[in-house]
C-alpha cells in the first residue's frame, strides 16, 4: 500500500470513528428524552422536567459534535474517495441525499424548539418536537445503515453499459432491494440496540457519578434506575441480535467471519479461539487458547459443521485487527451484561446501590463507545480489501491528494478531535456532577 492510501484511510477512519461516537449516543438518548418529557406531561412532576432539562443539554452537546463531524464526512467522501462516487454514485448518492433531506433538517430544526422553545410553543408542540427529533435520529440511522449494508452485501443493482455521465455504469435496478439488502435488517437492529445501550450506560454512569458526590439527589437516583433497567433489557437483546447478525455475515461475507475467528484452514468441527495472537505470516494463531469444536457449534449450531477458513479466500481482510476488535466488543458486551444485571438485582433487593457498584457504573460511562467502535472496526476492516464487496476495491477509490496534504490535514484533525473529545468529557462530567439543581 502506498503512503497516500494509508493516510487517506487513517484520516477517514479517524473521522468516521470520531463521528460515530456522537450518533451512537443521540439515537438512544433522543428516545429517552422523549420518555422523560412524556412522563412530565403525564405526571406534571417537576423532577422529570428537571431531568429533561439537564439531559437535553447533554443531548445538544452530542448533537452539535455529531453535526460538525458529519459535515466533515460529507466532504471527505469527495476529497479522500473520489472513486467511490465515480463508480457507485448512482446507488450510494441518493441514499446519502435522502438522509439529509428526511432526517438532518428535521433534527436540526426541531432541536431548536426542544432547546429554546419551551415557553414559546404550546406543551403538546414541545412534546411533539421531542418525538420528531427522536424519530429523525432513527431515520438518519436507517439511511446510513442501508448504505453501509449495501456496501457490505450489495443487492438490487444492474450494469448499464450505455450509461453516460459521472456516476459510473452501475445503477440501481430495484431500490427496495438496494435498501433492504441482505445484511441491512441485522445491522440496523444491531446499531439501534448499540445506541440504546450506549445511552443507557451514559445515563447510569453520569448519574452514578452524581450520586457518589450527592447521595441524596433523587433525580440522579431516578435516572440511574432508568439507565440500569434499560441496559438490563437491551444488552441480552443485543447478544441475540449480534448472534443473528453473525450468522448472516457467515452466509454473505464468510471471509470476515474467518478473520473474526482466526480460522486459517477450512475444516469440520472447527475449534473456537478464545484468545491468542494471529500470526499472519505463518497463518496460525500463536499462544491460542481454544475450545474444541466451539466455532462450529456457535456458527453452524452443530458440533461438526464445516467452516470455510481463510485459505478458501483469495481476497481476505487483515486478520489481527478484526480478531482483536471482535474480542473487545464481545468482552465489553459480557461485562455490560454482568453490570446491568448486578445493578438490577441490587435495585430490586435493596433499592439503592453500594458505592463499589456506583464506581463501577461511573467507570462504565463510556463503555458503549468502546463496544460500538470495536464493532464498527470488525465490520469495516472485515470488508477489506473491498470498499463495496465484489464491486469496488478500496485501492481503486482513493483520491490523488499528496501525502503532504493528507499529513498536514490529518495532523489538524487529530489535534482538533483530541481537544474536542477532552472538552466534551470534561463538560459532561462537570454538568452531571452538578446535577439538576441549576
Amino acid at each position, binding site marked *: 500500500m502506498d503512503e497516500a492510501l494509508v493516510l487517506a484511510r487513517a484520516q477517514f477512519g479517524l473521522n468516521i470513528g470520531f463521528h460515530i461516537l456522537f450518533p451512537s449516543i443521540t439515537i438512544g438518548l433522543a428516545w429517552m428524552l422523549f420518555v422523560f418529557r412524556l412522563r412530565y406531561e403525564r405526571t406534571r412532576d417537576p423532577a422529570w422536567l428537571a431531568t429533561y432539562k439537564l439531559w437535553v443539554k447533554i443531548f445538544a*452537546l452530542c448533537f452539535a459534535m455529531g453535526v460538525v463531524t458529519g459535515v466533515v464526512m460529507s466532504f471527505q467522501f469527495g476529497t479522500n474517495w473520489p472513486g467511490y462516487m465515480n463508480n457507485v454514485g448512482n446507488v450510494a448518492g441518493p441514499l446519502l441525499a435522502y438522509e439529509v433531506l428526511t432526517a438532518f433538517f428535521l433534527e436540526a430544526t426541531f432541536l431548536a424548539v426542544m432547546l429554546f422553545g419551551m415557553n414559546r410553543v404550546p406543551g403538546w408542540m414541545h412534546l411533539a418536537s421531542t418525538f420528531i427529533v427522536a424519530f429523525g435520529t432513527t431515520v438518519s440511522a436507517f439511511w446510513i445503515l442501508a448504505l453501509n449494508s449495501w456496501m457490505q452485501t450489495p443487492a438490487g443493482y444492474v450494469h448499464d453499459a450505455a450509461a453516460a455521465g459521472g456516476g459510473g455504469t452501475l445503477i440501481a435496478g430495484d431500490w427496495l432491494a438496494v435498501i433492504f439488502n441482505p445484511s441491512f435488517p441485522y445491522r440496523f437492529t444491531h446499531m439501534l440496540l448499540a445506541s440504546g445501550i450506549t445511552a443507557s450506560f451514559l445515563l447510569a454512569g453520569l448519574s452514578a457519578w452524581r450520586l457518589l458526590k450527592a447521595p441524596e439527589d433523587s433525580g440522579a437516583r431516578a435516572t440511574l434506575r432508568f439507565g440500569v433497567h434499560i441496559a438490563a433489557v437491551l444488552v441480552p437483546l443485543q447478544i441475540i441480535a449480534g448472534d443473528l447478525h453473525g450468522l448472516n455475515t457467515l452466509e454473505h461475507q464468510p471471509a470476515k467471519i474467518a478473520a473474526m475467528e482466526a480460522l486459517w484452514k477450512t475444516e469440520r468441527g472447527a475449534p473456537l479461539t478464545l484468545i491468542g495472537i494471529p500470526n499472519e505470516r505463518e497463518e496460525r494463531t500463536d499462544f491460542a487458547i481454544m475450545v474444541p469444536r466451539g466455532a462450529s457449534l456457535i456458527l453452524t449450531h452443530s458440533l461438526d459443521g464445516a467452516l470455510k477458513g481463510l485459505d478458501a479466500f483469495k481476497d481476505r481482510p487483515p486478520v489481527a485487527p478484526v480478531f482483536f476488535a471482535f474480542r473487545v466488543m464481545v468482552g465489553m458486551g459480557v461485562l455490560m451484561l454482568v453490570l446491568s444485571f448486578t445493578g438490577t438485582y441490587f435495585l430490586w433487593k435493596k433499592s439503592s446501590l453500594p458505592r463499589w457498584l456506583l464506581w463501577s457504573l461511573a467507570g462504565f460511562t463510556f463503555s458503549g463507545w468502546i463496544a460500538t467502535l470495536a464493532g464498527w472496526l470488525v465490520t469495516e476492516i472485515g470488508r477489506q480489501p473491498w470498499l463495496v464487496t465484489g464491486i469496488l476495491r478500496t485501492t481503486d477509490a482513493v483520491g490523488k491528494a499528496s501525502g503532504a496534504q493528507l499529513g498536514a490535514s490529518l495532523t489538524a484533525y487529530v489535534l482538533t478531535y483530541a481537544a474536542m473529545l477532552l472538552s466534551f468529557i470534561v463538560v459532561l462530567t462537570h454538568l452531571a456532577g452538578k446535577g439538576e439543581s441549576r
Partner: protein
Amino acid sequence: MNQPLILVFTALMGGAILAYVVLDGYDLGVGMLMPAADRDQQQLMVNSIGPFWDANETWLVLGIGLLLVAFPAAHGVVLGALYLPVAAMLVGLMLRGVAFEFRIKAEGWHRELWNWLFWAGSFIASFAQGLMLGRYITGFASGFGYWLFALVVGGAVCGGYVLLGSTWLVLKSDGELQRKAILWARWGLMWVALAVVLVSIATPLASETVRQRWFSFPNMIFVSPLPIATFAAGLWIWFSLGKSDWKPFAGAVAIYVLSFAGLAYSLFPYVVMDRLTIWEAAAHPSALRFLLVGTAIVLPFILGYTLYVYRVFRGKAKGGDIYGS
C-alpha cells in the same frame, strides 16, 4: 432527453448553496463580530443565532450532498482540487460549532476561551469559503496571480458575511447593540463595495470565459441589470440603516442573490470552469429520478417547518441563558 432533469438538479444544488451562504453567512458574520462587542452584547449575539445555526449548517450538507449525488464526477474534481481550503473550513466550522455549545456551559476564563475560539472558527471558515470560491471561479488555475485573486475573494466573503451578520443583528437586537450593529453594517457595506469592485475587475482578467460573457456585445446590455441592481441594493442598505430594522438585512440578502445569479451566469453550463459541464458530470437518470420523487415530497415540508421555527423565534434576542426558557 435528460436535460430537464439535470437542469432541475442544477437549480436545486444552486438553491441549496445559496441558502447556505445566506443563512450560515449571517451566523458566521455574527461570530466574526464577537470581539467588537462587550460581554453582555456577546451573549445577546449568540442568543440571536442559537435556535438557527444547526439547521443553517445543514444546507451546506445538502448542497455538497447534491453535488455528490447529482454530479458525482464533479464532486471528486472540485473537492480534490480544494483539498486544503476544505480541510481548513471544516476545522473552522467544527471549532465554532463546538465552541458555541461549550461556551454556554462554561464560566470565567473558560467562557472567554470558547468565545475566542468561536470567533477564530467563524473567521477561518469564512475565509476558507472565500478561498474556495476564488479557486473555483478560475477553474483551479495555478500561478501566483490566481492565488492572489483567491485571497482577495477570501477577504471579500468575510466582508460579505460581516454585512449579513451585522444587518441580522440590526434586525434581532435593540438599544446599544443595535447602534453598534448599524455602525458595523456601514463598515461591512464599504468593505463589500470595495471587494465587489476589485473582484469585478479581476475576474474578467482571470478568466477568458467570464470576459466573453460579460464584456462582449450584445451580452453587456442583457446582463447590465445585475450590477445596477446590486448597486441599488447597496444604496438601499446604506440609507435604510438606522431607519428600519428589516430593510438592511433584506438588502444584504438581495446582494447575495444577485451576486449568485451573476456567478451562475458566468459558469453555466460548467460545473468545473472550462473543463466539465453539468451534462458530462451528471449521474444516471435512474438515480436522479429516484431522488427527485423524494425531494419533491420532502422539500416543501423542510421549507414549511423552517419558516415555522423562524416564526416561533421571531422578535428581538434576549440576554441571559436561553436554555429551557
